[in-house]
């Protein structure tokens, strides 16, 4: 239906194009040959539209991407606990059988199984798990004989498997630049078509190909504290997409662009506190690559799954004393309004005044006193901060340096 509507749109647009070029209806009245021309053009458009309809829209334009992604996605089966489903999807990221997926309960059992595009069955072993980013890396074992259980994963070489080389870099990031690594920002821009390939609701069985759903890439954004996505400790970048991918079984699906290039992997199902709906997103390729590099570092032994914890927690730091006192009432949801600035303090030196309303701290909006407190408590005493404040009808930005005294208010 959608495709038909598109064809109709094209047809109607071309009609209007003709109209706008003055072939109707004035021309019809004055020149006798005009109706013939008009009819002729009309027919040409109609025929051409039909050709377009048959040739262009029938294929959908996604063939290339689908052909690229299908053999590189695996169906995963494992432990099922309560409402947590024991199935999922994964992406082959090396010829020797490394599979990237999302950390979930299904990996906790002893018998994790992977089924490839051709229906072949493998045992999968957990190599590495990251509880912050909620990612996991699996190693496939040898293929199972027809009708038999797959052999356990050992050190023997397996493969080669079709896989996505996810090596990439982002401009200015810390990833070691592999030779010829692609710039992952160049692979995907907002409004680009994206396809997610995986096994939602385990609809695909055996050798059946995985399910493909389509949408566009909306934006790259941070899952920050403001949006407080529940039960998801990861606060880094994600790719927001408008395809519906937050279904059981979808996590671990590959996300590719129109060319079939790997751009991300559907993350675990989370509910957005912002919309209270399931949030459709993917973990970006560079984040996945970072995890893969970590997982491949030598200190990882072949023993049990190694838990990697985020390193950003750090130790206790001394808090920054700006000298700002905020108006406080019993009612917490009031905006952070400066009640007093201690004389000689950092904030006083920076030009913060009484009755200034603080809008943001280092670019992060502080909507109320509670948010202000939280943000301030995360600042260390050697950190410079930029406050955006409202004074009267002006919005100013104020920089507070740890050891600073002169005026620094600029409009």
């Amino acid at each position, binding site marked *: 239906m959608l495709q038909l509507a598109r064809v109709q749109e094209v047809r109607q647009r071309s009609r209007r194009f003709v109209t706008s070029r003055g072939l109707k209806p004035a021309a019809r009245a004055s020149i006798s040959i005009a109706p013939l021309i008009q009819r002729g053009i009309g027919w040409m458009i109609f025929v051409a539209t039909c050709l*377009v309809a048959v040739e262009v829209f029938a294929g959908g334009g996604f063939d290339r991407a689908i052909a690229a992604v299908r053999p590189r996605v695996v169906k995963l089966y494992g432990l099922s606990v309560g409402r947590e489903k024991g199935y999922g999807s994964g992406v082959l990221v090396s010829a020797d059988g490394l599979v990237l997926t999302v950390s979930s309960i299904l990996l906790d059992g002893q018998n994790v199984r992977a089924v490839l595009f051709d229906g072949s069955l493998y045992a999968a072993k957990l190599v590495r798990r990251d509880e912050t980013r909620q990612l996991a890396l699996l190693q496939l074992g040898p293929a199972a004989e027809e009708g038999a259980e797959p052999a356990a994963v050992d050190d023997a070489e397996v493969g080669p498997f079709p896989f996505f080389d996810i090596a990439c870099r982002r401009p200015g990031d810390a990833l070691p630049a592999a030779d010829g690594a692609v710039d992952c920002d160049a692979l995907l821009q907002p409004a680009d078509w994206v396809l997610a390939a995986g096994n939602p609701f385990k609809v695909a069985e055996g050798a059946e190909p995985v399910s493909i759903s389509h949408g566009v890439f909306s934006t790259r954004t941070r899952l920050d504290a403001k949006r407080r996505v529940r039960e998801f400790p990861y606060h880094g970048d994600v790719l927001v997409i408008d395809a519906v991918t937050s279904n059981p079984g979808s996590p671990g699906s590959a996300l590719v662009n129109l060319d079939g290039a790997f751009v991300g992997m559907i993350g675990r199902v989370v509910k957005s506190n912002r919309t209270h709906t399931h949030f459709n997103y993917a973990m970006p390729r560079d984040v996945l690559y970072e995890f893969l590099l970590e997982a491949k570092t030598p200190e990882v032994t072949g023993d049990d799954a190694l838990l990697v914890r985020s390193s950003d927690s750090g130790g206790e730091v001394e808090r920054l004393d700006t000298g700002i006192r905020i108006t406080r009432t019993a009612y917490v949801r009031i905006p952070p309004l400066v009640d007093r600035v201690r004389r000689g303090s950092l904030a006083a030196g920076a030009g913060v005044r009484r009755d200034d309303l603080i809008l943001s701290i280092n670019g992060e909006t502080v909507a109320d006193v509670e948010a202000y407190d939280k943000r301030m408590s995360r600042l260390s005493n050697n950190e410079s901060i930029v406050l955006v404040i409202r004074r009267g009808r002006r919005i100013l930005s104020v920089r507070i340096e740890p050891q600073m005294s002169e005026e620094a208010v600029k409009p």
Partner: protein
Amino acid sequence: MNRKRTVGQFGMHSVFRRRGAVLAVVFSLIFMAPTLASDDAYEVRRATQECFRAVATRLRPSLVKIETVGGTQPLTAAPRRIATPIPLEEGSERAPRSQTPFRDTLGSKFVIAGGPVTGLVYSSDGYIITSSFNFVRDPALISVTLADGRHLVADLVARDHVRKLALLKVDADDLVVPEWVSHQDVRVGQWAIALGLGFGGRDASITVGIVSAWRRMQGNAIQTDAKLNPANYGGPLCDLSGRVIGIAVPMAQRPGELAGVEFYDAGIGFAVPRERVDAIAAELMTGRSFYRGWLGIVLDPRRKDAAIVTNIADPSPMQAVGVLPGDRIVRANGTEIDHFGHLVQALYMIPAGETVPLEIERDDERFTVQVTLARSVDLGSLPDLTEPFDPADPQPQTPEDSSEGDGG
């Protein structure tokens, strides 16, 4: 002819700026169709994604990021100590709302998280149109970031609580006004692209769908299957040429400040089209806000087949036109009324202050009254009847939840 080149040039602004350039390319593709190779569907896909991006680029100068500071908690999540009402509307001089069954409640167990929202430049002299949904918390301060990076304090001029629009004003006189497309030129099935700044960042987030229907919500909205949610409410829904079809708002076929939240990302979204926006904005500019309209009556909850008035607030619009207990409402605004739900359906999009014809049946006689709907704050209390209205009775009169106390 090298087709790849054509596609590459397609995204260039100079080409796109001309109205109809998109059509021209689509048109040329049509004529090239017989010569196209097999994977040209792919090229068309490429061209469409370039189109979507060009729409976002074209509209970006007119998009503004709106941030709010302070404001009330959603009522259901309010700490106990502030349970005494924070007025949802100004000028509330009557008894606390909890005493009346006629309340414009938020009525939903819903948390509204913080974060930026989206607005669209309405006029070059500083008016910005957005969704009233973005201000349900009555923020203490609204700030606007223009596309060029200017950060300004905005005044909330007025709100339409019914059509979910709001008008802001900033001190600027050089804003970039987008081109709009008339309601008449919108066709079901055409591409619809929604843009928002709710995810932060400089560039707009993009979601794409088609126009699903028009003249929805009693002619107040165009329906789309683009994924609309708080990240793009208040932002534009555009056509493929980058013209604005409407302003994305949450809506549902029921009254209430948060009606429509059930449709987040569901492929059912609504946008208020140009003609409505213009008419409403003209009123909003004068400072007039639109509130939910009320009749001020209670219907008999036992009758599922007829709308029988059992009690009338004093004062209320229905009292003013002489409606009495026992009267039956048979027709409202041209719609036949068989039960309470019909009445809500007929009136939920009509704001207070507007007049609707109601056909009343009394003792087998029918007559029509012209009722001017009132705001909830202007309704009086319900007189005691022989069967007193019991606020503790869960069945009848909480207007938000399928009650009988409602006038729309």
